[in-house]
């Protein structure tokens, strides 16, 4: 009774208040009060204080700050519909968010956040429909498109040599995965297909598929299937077309008006596999293909896995791509579609030293007038002389590696073995001993002095020796070696190098100058003697775990030292960096994970070496324990790995009087806080004031039986400013 009377009274007061309203927002009596006492007297009093505070009484900046905690999708839209004041606040928020992202891309002041379904909040809210409890499987080479509040993901390769044909969508508001209930004619399982969005439909074309394992010796194949997915009706339809393009994968597509333009790709024409630089157009309404007439004889060299962007309705931009082994492109071409004859134009690219490398297996997307590409971290200046020595693949592994690569390549280009077939399939004899398929990417075999090849060779050398030594019970443990207080490194890291270097010397491939260039730091040389002498009496097998742990800690510390050092604005660093750096094992007991580091100004050289050793250690460790690792994304607390760097290219002058693209100078080599580990063949789509990265595979694990794939979603956005 009491409550009803109170409610009625409040209703009356609301009526009165509305009549007196001049301002945009009102201070109504509170709805709930803990002690239930009547607030009748202060109902019409706009100055009611104490518990009468209203959300709308907060200043605009506070309200805007609160709203930044909301996912900037559906929730923000709902907020803008609440009242006029909220709408203007949301407008400000959006404008500020766009500016912050824009500035963040130029200043490299952004941060990554991760969402992994496994570690997402486990609270079971009853409002979540059952479908959202599904967890999407990790994948690479999938297709992704953003539409409204969702990111749609289709297909891709799995962790174990199968291909998906499932369609998922990630609700960016609610931060969970859903599996739309799809009807109609499902596409075949495929990866590296192109998917674009047009008029509330998704258009999927092309792709490749792993052979199915059963029955055995099935062909892998390229597709020329064209499917439409109606996002409203949740229905797949296959489009039957004639005179369409040959089966292809790794092509790129974009929508201009009512036309989808595709370019390039890895194709199968008349039983032969080749890279293409063809342009095909699809009239999306009438579903027929046609080829445009091109003016001039200049066209981009054939390629696949390039980036294709819409500049405007009549212009598209092609960047990067792969043309085969040792042929990764970093050029840019514009296709001018404004007249009857279409024209390719090569666009000069400036600031190439800040460009991304490997713009074919790494994700990219366009946001406003910027092209954002991810990729491996560029080499620091002052290249490691050590790394340079590893030009030739080391050891037996190197030799057979080449042979494997040859075999793999043959499988990837099965044309030679093919006989006249339908466009869809090949009868390929897959040699039994090559199963399961280790999918080899052409571009892996990049120029030998590229950073990856160095890592590879170095890592292989170290790994081989690791394994060799481990089996010989010869693993040196420097854990308790206190004699090295003055050396920059102690313990097994140095030892790793010593072993690797010895190995390389044995192989005798290196230039004569290499031996002189062996570990530069004097400390390391001296330490070698130490370790050699002390290795004799050590019983190491039972301490191997300790070594591993201390390695992890050491590597972890190195990583922290390194990244902190490279970051420019680190305020909390102690003055004496050296005391932590010199003997990390001494500090091991203190578990200095979060200890701040110092900002000495003259350690650039040491950083490079640290970086190199750390990476070598990390890579070798990763390989050594590859089998035991779970397939899902590691939890956030684990040791840091190689990360993806960010590269930004300014496209604002692409269509100007003096057309050019310009790479933005990166800071800290494009490494941003929280960067995801290095994966290739993932996708990145633009979100609202953020970029959304999903999926991918660890490149090194492509050679293994089970690939490390990721199903985490990473968000790149500007850090929140405090009001």
């Amino acid at each position, binding site marked *: 009774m009491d409550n009803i009377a109170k409610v009625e009274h409040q209703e009356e007061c609301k009526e009165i208040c509305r009549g007196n309203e001049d301002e945009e927002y009102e201070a109504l009596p509170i709805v709930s009060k803990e002690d239930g006492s009547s607030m009748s007297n202060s109902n019409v009093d706009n100055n009611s204080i104490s518990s009468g505070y*209203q*959300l709308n009484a907060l200043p605009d900046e506070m309200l805007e700050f609160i709203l930044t905690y909301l996912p900037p999708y559906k929730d923000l839209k709902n907020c803008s519909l609440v009242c006029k004041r909220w709408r203007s606040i949301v407008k400000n928020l959006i404008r500020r968010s766009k500016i912050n992202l824009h500035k963040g891309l130029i200043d490299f002041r952004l941060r990554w956040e991760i969402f992994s379904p496994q570690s997402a*909040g486990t609270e079971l809210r009853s409002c979540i429909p059952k479908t959202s409890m599904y967890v999407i499987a990790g994948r690479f080479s999938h297709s992704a498109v953003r539409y409204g509040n969702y990111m749609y993901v289709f297909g891709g390769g799995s962790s174990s040599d199968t291909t998906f044909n499932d369609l998922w969508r990630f609700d960016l508001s609610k931060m969970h995965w859903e599996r739309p209930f799809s009807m109609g004619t499902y596409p075949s399982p495929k990866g590296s297909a192109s998917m674009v969005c047009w008029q509330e439909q998704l258009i999927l074309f092309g792709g490749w598929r792993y052979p199915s394992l059963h029955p055995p010796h099935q062909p892998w194949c390229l597709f020329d299937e064209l499917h439409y997915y109606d996002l409203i009706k949740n229905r797949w339809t296959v489009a039957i077309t004639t005179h369409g393009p040959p089966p292809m994968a790794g092509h790129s597509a974009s929508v201009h008006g009512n036309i989808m333009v595709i370019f390039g790709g890895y194709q199968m024409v008349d039983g032969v596999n080749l890279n293409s630089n063809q342009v095909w157009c699809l009239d999306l309404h009438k579903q027929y293909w046609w080829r445009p007439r091109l003016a001039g004889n200049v066209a981009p060299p054939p390629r696949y896995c390039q980036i294709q962007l819409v500049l405007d309705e009549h212009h598209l931009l092609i960047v990067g791509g792969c043309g085969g082994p040792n042929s990764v492109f970093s050029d840019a071409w514009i296709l001018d579609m404004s007249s009857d004859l279409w024209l390719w134009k090569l666009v000069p690219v400036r600031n190439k030293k800040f460009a991304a490398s490997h713009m074919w297996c790494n994700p990219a997307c366009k946001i406003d007038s910027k092209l954002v590409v991810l990729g491996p971290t560029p080499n620091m200046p002052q290249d490691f002389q050590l790394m340079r020595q590893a030009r030739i693949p080391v050891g037996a592994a190197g030799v057979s590696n080449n042979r494997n690569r040859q075999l793999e390549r043959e499988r990837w280009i099965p044309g030679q073995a093919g006989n006249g077939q339908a466009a869809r399939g090949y009868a390929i004899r897959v040699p039994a001993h090559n199963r399961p398929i280790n999918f080899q990417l052409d571009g892996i075999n990049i120029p030998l002095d590229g950073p990856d090849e160095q890592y590879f060779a170095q890592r292989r050398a170290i790994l081989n020796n690791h394994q060799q030594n481990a089996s010989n019970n010869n693993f040196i443990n420097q854990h308790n070696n206190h004699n090295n207080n003055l050396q920059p490194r102690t313990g097994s890291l140095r030892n790793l190098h010593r072993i690797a270097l010895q190995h390389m010397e044995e192989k005798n491939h290196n230039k004569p100058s290499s031996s002189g260039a062996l570990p530069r730091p004097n400390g390391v040389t001296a330490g070698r003697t130490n370790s050699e002498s002390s290795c004799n009496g050590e019983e190491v097998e039972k301490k191997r775990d300790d070594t591993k742990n201390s390695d992890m800690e050491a590597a972890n510390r190195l990583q922290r030292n390194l990244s902190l050092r490279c970051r420019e604005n680190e305020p909390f660093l102690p003055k004496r960096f050296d005391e932590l750096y010199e003997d990390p094992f001494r500090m091991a007991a203190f578990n200095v994970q979060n200890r701040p580091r110092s900002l000495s100004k003259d350690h650039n050289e040491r950083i490079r070496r640290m970086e190199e050793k750390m990476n070598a250690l990390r890579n070798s460790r990763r390989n050594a324990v590859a089998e035991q690792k779970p397939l899902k994304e590691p939890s956030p607390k684990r040791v840091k790995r190689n990360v993806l760097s960010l590269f930004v290219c300014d496209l604002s002058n692409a269509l100007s009087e003096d057309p050019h693209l310009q790479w933005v100078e990166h800071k800290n080599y494009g490494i941003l*806080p929280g960067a995801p580990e290095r994966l290739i063949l993932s996708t990145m789509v633009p979100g609202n004031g953020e970029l959304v990265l999903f999926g991918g595979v660890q490149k090194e694990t492509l050679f293994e039986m089970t690939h490390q794939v990721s199903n985490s979603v990473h968000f790149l956005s500007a850090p929140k400013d405090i009001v």
Partner: protein
Amino acid sequence: MPNIKLQSSDDEIFDTDVQIAKCSGTIKTMLEDCGMEDGDNAVVPLPNVNSAILRKVLHWANFHKDDPQPTEDDENKEKRTDDISSWDADFLKVDQGTLFELILAANYLDIKGLLDVTCKTVANMIKGKTPEEIRKTFNIKNDFTAAEEEQVRKENEWCEEK
């Protein structure tokens, strides 16, 4: 342990440990600037915070006094808003008015942790609701005409000025 006296807007004095009071950036700056670090007689006036709210703020600060400072390291930050601790969630089970006043106090006193958790709480109250539900929760009047509302629905601020 030195104490400090904080005076609320309604002239109530709160005797607090200096370390706890220093979780507030504002108080910390005040003390350092005025050199009142050791003064046991120091009274810091806080005209923008009333006693009820100040009491709650100190209660929160006392519980969280041993929290590690958030480090800006490279660890993967998780993107979620449901990571409010259960103590904080209980602490914030108050009526809306108190909640908003806590937000204002946390902002004025520059207590990042409290501001973060209170704003997250309010954001969680907004999340997932339709506009009408939001209005009802926070007692806001809808001042759109039907035509205006339709227009707002259609517009997409994120894609404008392409």
